[in-house]
């Protein structure tokens, strides 16, 4: 048995057991091949993670009505958190106005709006962010002033990144890499707010 066949078997292992007719050759090869032993160790290590993966992810049938209702939800009363976020975003927008990268895109292409799907996805993120800010506001007293300052500082960093990606995407609509960077910014913002809420709840 050669290394290639051993690796083929390891890719199915341990869910797919080694066929009885090949088990002895498999073990004999492992005994004499350090590289394949390492691959087997990797496969052993990863087995629990692979086993834990879902077989498939089925979206709920009523997903769209839920998303639509969230997009249509009226804007809630501005909280201090949101005001802080807006202030940071406004400051960031001023700074990013002079960004060389943004200027590059603004000058090289005619002004354009992002692809139609972009506003809808952004609205979803905005709604999720607003919900998290509300939840965090309710827990604010559980976080120290230092932690709140750290959170606000990092939210401003993310907002600056979102503003730059968004401006660049407006100059180059449909650019999948720019979209990916924009979604990364939103995802990081939501993740940070979720983390802060979780930490406050646990305190």
């Amino acid at each position: 048995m050669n290394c290639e066949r051993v690796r083929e078997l390891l890719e199915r292992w341990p869910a797919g057991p080694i066929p009885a007719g090949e088990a002895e050759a498999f073990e004999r090869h492992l005994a004499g091949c350090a590289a394949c032993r390492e691959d087997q160790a990797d496969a052993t290590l990863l087995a629990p993670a692979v086993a834990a993966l879902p077989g498939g992810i089925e979206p709920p049938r009523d997903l769209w009505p839920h998303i639509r209702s969230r997009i249509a939800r009226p804007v809630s009363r501005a909280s201090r958190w949101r005001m802080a976020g807006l202030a940071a975003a406004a400051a960031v927008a001023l700074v990013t106005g002079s960004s060389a990268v943004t200027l590059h895109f603004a000058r090289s292409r005619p002004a354009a709006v992002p692809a139609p799907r972009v506003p809808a996805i952004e609205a979803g993120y905005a709604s999720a962010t607003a919900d998290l800010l509300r939840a965090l506001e309710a827990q604010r007293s559980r976080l120290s002033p230092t932690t709140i300052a750290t959170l606000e500082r990092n939210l401003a960093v993310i907002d600056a990144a979102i503003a730059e990606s968004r401006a660049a995407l407006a100059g180059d609509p449909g650019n999948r890499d720019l979209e990916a960077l924009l979604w990364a910014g939103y995802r990081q913002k939501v993740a940070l707010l979720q983390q802060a809420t979780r930490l406050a709840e646990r305190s």
Partner: protein
Amino acid sequence: MSAARLALRLTLTLAAPPAALASLAAQHVDRRMAVDPHASIRILDLAGAIHVSGWDRDSVTVTGTVPRGAGRFYAGGSRAGIKLGVESDSLGAPGVDLDIRVPRGATVWIKSSSATVELTGVEGDVDIATVSGDIRAEGAPRRISAEAMDGDIELTTRAAITRAKTAGGSITITGGGGDVTAASVSGAVRYTGAHKLLVGRLESVTGSVTFEGTVIRGGTLAIETHDGPVEVRVPPGQATRFELTSFGGAVTNALAGTEPVVPKGKPVRFTNGEGNAGAASVTVRTFKGNVRIGGT
């Protein structure tokens, strides 16, 4: 009270043993509890330092000192799981240092506000969350999750699944392997893998991201930054498909011995090593960070 009796009481008070006075100021903790080898251990300590180490005994021991004003130590539960820590209502309470030993196979959950957390030798699932403290872990936990808001995270571990997240701190992963996600907002992310990576996602908004290691055949590594520089170092001979995009930064491919001039914003795609089938995939996407690819 006569003057003589008053003088006697005053003398006795002043002559009280220092240890007796000290007991009023601090609570010494020394607890031992029998648990199952795979027990669930939940630890809560607001400030100070938490040291957790796995050992080959079916028991949990806790030693430490709780300063006056730091709160009340508690511990309770059953063989299947225990909860311990220091209960305090004040975020500004003095720090408590706890030295905790748990069965090597235990599942460990740790939460702190500003305490530094150190963990070693635990092989069960590990979940650590601290707001402003640092996290350091060593060993081979089955899965590890480490979260901090402003603290640094340093993992010298080999786990099937690794998750590390901090807002303002840095993340350093040494060893690694398996499925790794590490994300910081403004701190650096460094990965040095002694073990093969199956799935990796490393990201920072403004911090740098550095990867040095091997991605398993067919495995994927995705790196994203906004303006943080990215450096990827892989074995020169390993078959790896690269897709690199920087809209405002330079892309340098030192792996191929050339440093091509790449139009900004245009993806750079190339395959390193022999053969495309079964190659690992490395994707780097950054808004204006510089990207450099090199060999280990």
